[in-house]
């Protein structure tokens, strides 16, 4: 091995090839990796700003902590690791090769006496037979040996060894690390990083159509390695993919076009997804030939070195037909509204203009609890009941319908003229919550908030119309006198109490009016303003009872007007009325005057495909194979050396190994007694 020329390069080489440096790099690598797992990576930047505040957001951004594994400094650590391990190999290889070849037959008696594992063995057999016996023994024990005899006077030394190839283990494992890192760096796309650094490529952050993205943010089909994704609606096609970089993206032009014919989701009987499959057609402008195939999870298609994976799915522009209900108008009916996912439509409510943007549609919603989306509705966890089941068997006693499909849902935003938006999430079919059925619609003000759900009770036909008619009645001032009258009559069976009836009717009408203005809160305000403090609680209770019974009368009235027979007076009806009052009250906090119910839909899915070209993959795999071979060679080929110095009447036996284990101790003991026996005669 040649010494590097100058002392500086010598010092660098010393540093790089030292184990301390390697361990420091590995520690650094581990710490950086941990950061990347603790801080969620590649989120939209706005999330980080909310989470960290503007100051730390900037500092973290500067350090590249939102995409740690692709920052220059992280790749730098890997490069240094390659250099360090490489120079370590460079330094150790000659030593290792010498170890593999050498028998160390020049060991002196003095040095052998310094061994921890040695013994003096007495010779009882004819001196002429000693050498033959010893070498014979070594041979049957699988040792190779070399004999050094220098002249008559000198004692003869037999130097033997076995398992030297353990040293190859070092070369294989450490070489493998270098090879794997190089493969990884190729796929980490170092050339692109450099171009970005030098300003030849710029990340696009605007929301543009793919063909509008300028050349500086586009990568040519010849790009060595990439990993990006694209979402293609059924019937659509794409010839680019998007690579997510920092808070934006780059557009990678593909050497071919992918057309999505059909996307399929299959489900198990329980409703969980069983498979995602995309039927695609690839058209290659070079060969002019088409290529058809199906991509599914765990079954990618590789075409011209580009692997195409099933990564996800979404809505590709389903057409929805909705019924809109004005939540505060006296009208019982709805108006039709048509929309398409990912499109905005105008909606006018009196003077105010809104824009309705349908953002998502799902035909299937599998829920685990049978209790709907409500965050508070946690599954009941009865320890002993579960224990009984767990002691039984794993399959047949599964709780009935643990997970099942609750039907379609859709998501939309309603944006006012000022651009402020609220987001809604509604289910098409009523969900079973605490034993009763509700139409559920959630609302939130910002994407990182959870939805708060409003429940409209389903009527006896499982439809929303019943509630909507009752709501119309409750918000129709002209009907209050009639409702109040009916309630007053039912509350005072004695017809003689006419005066009381009138008074009761008056206050009931007033109550309805207050409720229609702002729900329970308005009612509470009224009570605070008109009732003595000590009496308030009692008054609230009484008012609430009146409201419920008036609600019941309103329900009957609404049915009458719709030409239906009166509802039965039972628990079921009482609950429906109570739920309706709650829903009407909650409508004040719903954030939109309109509730949309999904009437029917025409589903169009889109398939999320991931495309990668990773020329480093085979390099990494080759390195991996070497790594495994090397690890086993290092651990399970044991290098052992034996020296036998044959003197007159005595043999000095010494032994060494590069692994000081108990196995070695045992083996030494065995050899010692075997050799002693052999030499005794």
């Amino acid at each position, binding site marked *: 091995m040649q010494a590097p020329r100058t002392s500086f390069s010598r010092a660098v080489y010393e540093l790089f090839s030292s*184990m301390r440096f390697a361990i420091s790099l*590995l*520690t650094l*690598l*581990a710490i950086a*990796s941990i950061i*990347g*797992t*603790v801080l*969620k*990576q590649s989120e939209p930047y706005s999330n980080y700003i909310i989470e960290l505040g503007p100051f730390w957001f900037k500092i973290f951004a500067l350090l590249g902590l939102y995409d*740690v*594994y692709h920052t220059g400094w992280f790749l730098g650590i890997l490069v240094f690791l390659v250099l360090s391990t490489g120079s370590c190999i460079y330094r150790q290889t000659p030593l290792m090769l010498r170890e593999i070849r050498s028998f160390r037959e020049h060991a002196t008696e003095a040095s052998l006496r310094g061994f921890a594992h040695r013994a003096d063995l007495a010779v009882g057999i004819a001196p002429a037979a000693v050498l*033959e*016996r010893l070498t014979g*023994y070594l041979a*049957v024990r*699988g040792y190779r040996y070399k004999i050094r005899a220098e002249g008559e006077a000198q004692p003869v030394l037999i130097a033997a060894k076995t398992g030297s190839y353990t040293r190859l283990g070092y070369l294989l494992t450490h070489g493998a690390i270098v090879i794997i890192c190089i493969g990884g760096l190729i796929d980490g796309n170092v050339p692109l990083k450099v171009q970005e650094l030098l300003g030849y490529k710029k990340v696009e952050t605007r929301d543009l159509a793919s063909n509008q993205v300028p050349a500086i943010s586009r990568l040519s089909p010849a790009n060595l390695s990439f*990993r990006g994704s694209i979402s293609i609606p059924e019937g659509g096609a794409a010839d680019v993919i998007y690579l997510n970089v920092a808070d934006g993206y780059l557009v990678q032009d593909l050497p071919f076009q992918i057309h999505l014919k059909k996307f399929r989701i299959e489900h*198990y*009987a329980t409703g*969980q997804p*069983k498979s*995602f499959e995309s039927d695609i057609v690839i058209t290659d402008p070079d060969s002019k030939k088409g290529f058809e195939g199906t991509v*599914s*999870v*765990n*079954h990618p298609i590789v075409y011209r070195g580009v*692997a195409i*994976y099933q990564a996800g799915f979404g809505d590709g522009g389903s057409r929805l037909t909705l019924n809109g209900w004005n939540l505060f108008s006296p009208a019982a009916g709805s108006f039709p509204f048509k929309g398409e996912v990912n499109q905005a439509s105008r909606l006018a409510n009196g003077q105010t203009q809104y824009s309705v943007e349908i953002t998502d549609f799902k035909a299937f919603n599998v829920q685990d609890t049978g209790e709907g989306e409500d965050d508070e509705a946690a599954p009941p*966890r009865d*320890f002993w009941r*579960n*224990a009984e*089941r*767990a*002691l*039984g*068997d*794993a*399959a*047949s006693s*599964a709780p009935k319908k643990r997970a099942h499909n609750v039907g379609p849902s859709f998501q939309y935003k309603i944006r006012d003229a000022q651009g402020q938006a609220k987001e809604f999430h509604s289910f098409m079919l009523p969900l079973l919550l605490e034993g009763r059925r509700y139409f559920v619609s959630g609302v939130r003000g910002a994407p990182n908030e959870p939805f708060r759900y409003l429940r409209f009770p389903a009527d006896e036909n499982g439809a929303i119309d019943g509630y909507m008619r009752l709501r119309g009645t409750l918000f129709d001032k002209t009907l209050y006198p009639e409702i109040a009258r009916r309630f007053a009559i039912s509350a005072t069976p004695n017809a003689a109490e006419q005066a009381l009836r009138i008074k009761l009717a008056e206050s009931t009408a007033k109550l309805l009016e207050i409720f229609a203005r702002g729900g329970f809160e308005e009612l509470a305000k009224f009570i605070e303003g008109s009732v003595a403090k000590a009496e308030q609680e009692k008054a609230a209770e009484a008012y609430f009872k009146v409201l419920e019974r008036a609600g019941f009368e309103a329900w009957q009235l609404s049915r009458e007007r719709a030409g239906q027979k009166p509802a039965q007076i039972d628990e079921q009806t009482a609950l429906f009325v109570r739920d309706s009052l709650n829903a009407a009250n909650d409508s004040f906090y719903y954030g939109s005057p309109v509730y949309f119910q999904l009437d029917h839909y025409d589903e169009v899915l889109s398939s999320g495909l991931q*495309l*990668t070209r*990773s020329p480093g*993959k085979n390099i*990494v*795999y080759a390195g*991996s194979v070497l*790594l*495994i071979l090397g*690890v*086993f060679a290092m*651990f399970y080929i044991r290098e052992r050396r034996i020296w036998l110095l044959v003197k007159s009447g005595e043999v000095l036996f010494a032994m060494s190994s590069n692994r*000081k*284990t*108990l196995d070695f*101790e045992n083996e030494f003991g065995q050899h010692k007694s075997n050799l002693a026996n*052999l030499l005794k005669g």
Partner: protein
Amino acid sequence: MEAVQDYRQVSFFRGLSGFDWVYAALLAAGSVYAFNLYGGYMDVYEKGILFLIAALLVGLGWFWKPVRILLPAVALLALFGVSQYHGELARAGQAFWLKYLFASQSAIMWMSALFVMATGGYWLGLALRSDFVNRVSAAITWSATAMGLIGLLVRWYESYLIGADVGHIPISNLYEVFILFSILTALLYLYYEQYYANRQLGAFVLPVISAAVAFLLWYAFGRDAQHIQPLVPALQSYWMKLHVPANFVGYGAFAVAAMVGVAYLFKSKGLLANRLPDLAVLDDVMYKAIAIGFAFFTIATILGAMWAAEAWGGYWSWDPKETWALIVWLNYAAWLHIRLVKGLRGAMLAWWAVVGLVVTVFAFLGVNMFLSGLHSYGTL
């Protein structure tokens, strides 16, 4: 020259007995039978895996003789269990043998109970210095392992009774892999127990299995997690059959190493000093366990990368689970460097092995609990 012939080392194959060959023949026949029966439903990789596993089990039995009894016994009892179903899942709760012994859930409960008994037994043996008690504990540990294996095999069959499309090898969620972990850790321990002719370490290794059992029971009773669930599309791959077991040999070995590390620390502090094996023995077991764990963990991580390349479109995505696997791996690589290159021994390495288990447990459980990523099956 004849004198040395007495010391000839018999080659591995010549040393095999008739029983070894009968065992191999049984396994070969069994795998060919399975192939004929189910080959039509397997893809080429699964066929390869079937014969690979058969070959590995032959090798394991030849290398470590008790396996030649364990496996046929487990196979026989599991087949008996399966025969009791008559194709009806409901019989798990009705047929006598199933209800009380061989339905998967019953077998797993037996495994749990036996492991806990064995833990107590080893401690009693340590306290009384009774080799007899320790022998009994070892026998219980073997039985627990057998029941666990039977439980998994029958569960495999049960999953197909739920539905042909639901059926899958029972190593697909946290509940199932905890059973696998218990079994593999016990087997690794039993191997070392025999190799070092030393039964005191059971008192240290079995508690970690009991802890796994405690988790298992909590997971089943508290979280109702014992039900067989169909596989999400990402897990429908032959890679699972290779990646998961390899990983759990690694985890099991690291757990053994850490618990032996605890024994080492006890002994070096003078606790139970005259009841535990020599420090040199403890050190040796620790090294051996970490070496085998490291080797298997390396394989598992590489297999995982290959699977990821097929399922997610990249062999390495810096997903939290992957990243933590790397951290675990780097940690043990550092441990091995310190011991083998720097030649360090003693309490420091024992502590490190214990800390290593903490890191490993985080990679195994903590990532699922606290971090989100692509490995999102098996939440708590």
